[in-house]
């Protein structure tokens, strides 16, 4: 086993373990903290995939922004400490569990059977100065996503502000 594989396994265990802890935690706040653990694991996977830029963006956006937003939203709800009695799950949770585990089993089985039968390229992607490549791509091929993104963000901002304000 190489070092790379070891890191991959550790990061995956961290990620999946945190994800499991997240969906089973009683307190919403603790669940959000586990979610941050999952995001960190995903960031490590991105870095292992030679996508260091995305790994850092994952930390910046998911951990630094979205997780904080969720924590703030939890603070606005009652039962911040997660002490109120009552079930964590809705009545349909056994059904959900069966569905999710069936789906997982099917996909994993298919993937294992497919083995390494992918059109895998021989070389690793050329990632020197990735940010520059990305910037040039934004101004040429991917100009539309670049401009649409600002529109999406504007709509989200205005929509959320309209909904959330106490008038």
């Amino acid at each position: 086993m190489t070092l790379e594989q070891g890191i991959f396994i550790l990061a995956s265990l961290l990620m999946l373990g945190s994800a499991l802890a997240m969906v089973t935690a009683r307190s919403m706040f603790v669940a959000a903290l586990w979610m941050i653990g999952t995001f960190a694991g995903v960031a490590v996977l991105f870095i292992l995939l030679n996508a260091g830029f995305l790994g850092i963006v994952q930390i910046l956006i998911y951990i630094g922004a979205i997780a904080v937003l969720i924590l703030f939203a939890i603070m606005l709800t009652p039962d911040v400490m997660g002490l109120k009695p009552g079930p964590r799950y809705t009545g349909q949770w056994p059904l959900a569990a069966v569905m999710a585990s069936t789906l997982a089993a099917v996909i994993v089985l298919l993937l294992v059977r497919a083995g390494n039968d992918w059109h895998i390229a021989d070389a690793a992607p050329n990632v020197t100065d990735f940010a520059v490549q990305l910037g040039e791509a934004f101004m040429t091929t991917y100009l539309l996503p670049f401009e649409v993104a600002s529109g999406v963000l504007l709509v989200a901002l205005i929509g959320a502000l309209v909904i959330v304000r106490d008038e």
Partner: protein
Amino acid sequence: MQQLDRLFILIGDWFHSLLAQWLPEPVVSAIGMLLSALIIMTIAAVTMLYMTYLERKVVARIQDRIGPNRVGPFGLLQPLADGIKMFTKEMIVPTQAHKVVYNIAPVLAVTPAMMAFAVIPFGRDMVASDLDIGLLYLIAVSSVTEIAIVMGGWASRNKYSLLGGMRAAAQMLSYEIPMVLVLLSLVLMVGSLRLSDFVDVQTVPFILLQPFAFIVFLISAAAEVARSPFDIPEAESELIAGYHTEYGGMRFALFQMAEFVAALGMACIMVTLFLGGWRSWIIPLPSWLWFVIKTFILINVWFWFRGTFPRLRIDQLQALAWKFLVPASLLHAIMTAVLVTFFPLVKDGQLVVQGAEWLTTTVVYFVANVVLLFVLMLLYRPYVRRTVRQLRVATPAAAARQQEVQAA
């Protein structure tokens, strides 16, 4: 001189070759990485201890006092005494607290502050990790601290802690935006996110080219690391001690340490981005020594702030961030983008400004910054006047008084 400049690199190489005699190469480089991390963090921790001493001395001088002078000569052993005291104190965990989160929070507060040092070039070729997206990494790491603070505030189960934690997080995230936008204009000039490239380009330090950016960054950085006048998160008079009210002993020390180390890290970042990093000014000293000197100057600027400014109120603080700094830094970035098209510093990864051209470039950028500052002042004059007028009649009592005055 050459030898002295490369002192630490030579020691590192010597150590590396020493280990390589017995151990295989991957193990040696792993040990090297861990050791460099350990050494840099230890230096940061010791510097942090003496920053507390220096702060007390400097603030004492500003307030016409002497400051710590009992333990050791000039009180130089005071921080050690404080450290030992913290270390041997009883560790109390409130019964009501969420034990696990309560214990993890202080550790997680220190980690991101320490991790910032990984990409800072301390001297010529002296950088632990010359990441090609170093600047983005710094921003990402500094935004993780908020979570540790919210965790600490929440786990204590104390109203003041929770409130302090939320306020701290709100303040930090508000000031992250102007900081990021103002760095955008530097990135436009340099065309890279690698911190060593920033140092390479700065034949003339960017503080002269972009003074406005430096001021905005200084303000946002002070807020980001909760130095006064932005120390609302731990405003004693309003929130007892903010998010670390319930913490004592070593855990409290870790929160303090996180704050001081973050301030130190910010000073290092500012030196790298605005003061030319390890480049020597006039006197040819070793590059790392110049870095230390510049950092020392900036740290004293923090202490000078602490001794001089009163604390801002939270509404004023948020208004400053969103209503002034964000639009101003955006305007600044746009202005820089226009300037860069006519007076580029870097083209296709190559520095294009040579010799005497630096003079014209510097003057152009400096004048543009000053003009921007004046334009902003003109734009904001009516707004500021209106706000001041509103503040005068803010309370009902004051409004009644004003009506009385007008009637009479």
